[in-house]
């Protein structure tokens, strides 16, 4: 591999994944490899288990949550089941939400929900994939519970004063998913098209789903 990349304009480092042999490993990379090898040698899990789990992690994305939300928008019975038992309702759509309970909180004209984990980084990973860095940041975890409207404004989300903001603080045993309100003007859209309006951030509750007509 060449050190030069063929152009000379000034810019920051490329988002470039070096070959793993190129650099010395960090202390914690060494620790990760050593722990994995020891656990495999001891038969706690196999190398195959590790590969399959890595694939499972990569296979999860906000598209899983979006599928669940879109179904809830078009099927009131499904929505009722989702609010009653999110893990079971997701399973109906072939989405494995895992064994840690997830509670879906519904946004309404008078109530807006937003999720956080003040103590650590709990997140509905099996419905949304791995969390964004800002969700795990000190600023988000510290401030959301005290000044949610100011934090939402930083995400470009302005809520009317008469809308109640509910901040849901997750734990290791209970995670939340926000069911956003279906945008106006989407009456003619089918479920797949609706799912494409549902972003990760609106299922966290920091933004609202885009209205396709605006």
């Amino acid at each position, binding site marked *: 591999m060449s050190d030069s990349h063929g152009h000379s304009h000034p810019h920051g480092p490329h988002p470039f994944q070096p070959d793993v042999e190129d650099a010395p490993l960090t202390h914690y990379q060494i620790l990760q490899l050593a722990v994995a090898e020891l*656990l495999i040698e001891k038969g706690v899990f196999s190398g195959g288990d590790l590969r399959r789990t890595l694939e499972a992690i990569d296979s999860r994305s906000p598209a899983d949550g979006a599928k669940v939300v879109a179904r809830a928008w078009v099927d009131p019975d499904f929505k009722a089941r989702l609010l009653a038992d999110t893990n079971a309702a997701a399973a109906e759509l072939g989405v494995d939400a895992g064994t840690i309970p997830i509670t879906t909180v519904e946004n309404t004209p008078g109530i807006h929900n937003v999720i*956080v984990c003040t103590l650590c*980084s709990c997140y509905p990973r099996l419905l949304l994939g791995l969390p964004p*860095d*800002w969700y795990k*940041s000190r*600023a988000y975890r*510290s401030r959301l519970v005290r000044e949610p409207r100011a934090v939402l404004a930083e995400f470009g989300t302005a809520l009317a004063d008469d809308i109640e903001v509910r901040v849901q603080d997750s734990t*290791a045993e209970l995670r939340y998913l926000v069911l956003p309100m279906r945008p106006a003007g989407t009456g003619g859209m089918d479920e797949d098209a609706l799912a494409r309006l549902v972003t990760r951030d609106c299922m966290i509750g920091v933004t609202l789903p885009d209205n396709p007509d605006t």
Partner: protein
Amino acid sequence: MPEISLPSLLPGAGVTHNCVMPADDKTRLRRHHDMGGLDAGPVERSEHDYAPWEKCVDAILRLLSGPKRGVLQIDELRRGIEDLGPGAYDELSYYERWIAAISNLLIEKGVISIDELGRKMAEVEARHEAERAKGGKA
């Protein structure tokens, strides 16, 4: 083989309870991870693609905490991360905290020993350096 000491490998090793609890008002003590409601700057909307080794840490935790194995629980991981202490909590990256806490918990539970971990780490590093030397990078 030099003697391997736990703190040289892992921050927070052997700490059962970290008692640094700054008071943020007259009535409430809190530990360093308990930050809900404190002052902080703007939320930086940063994202990054998870590096392969970070996903490996995540996968190790999922395998250990899943119902099939139940070697450790998510709340134990959280306690392990909190026990790294305020310095490590702020200085290590997210998945560095995870793998440090997972390692401490595995040692605490007797799943692995500190000696075999130290030897395995030396072996992993030597193997990687040999690969780099072959590729002309070292």
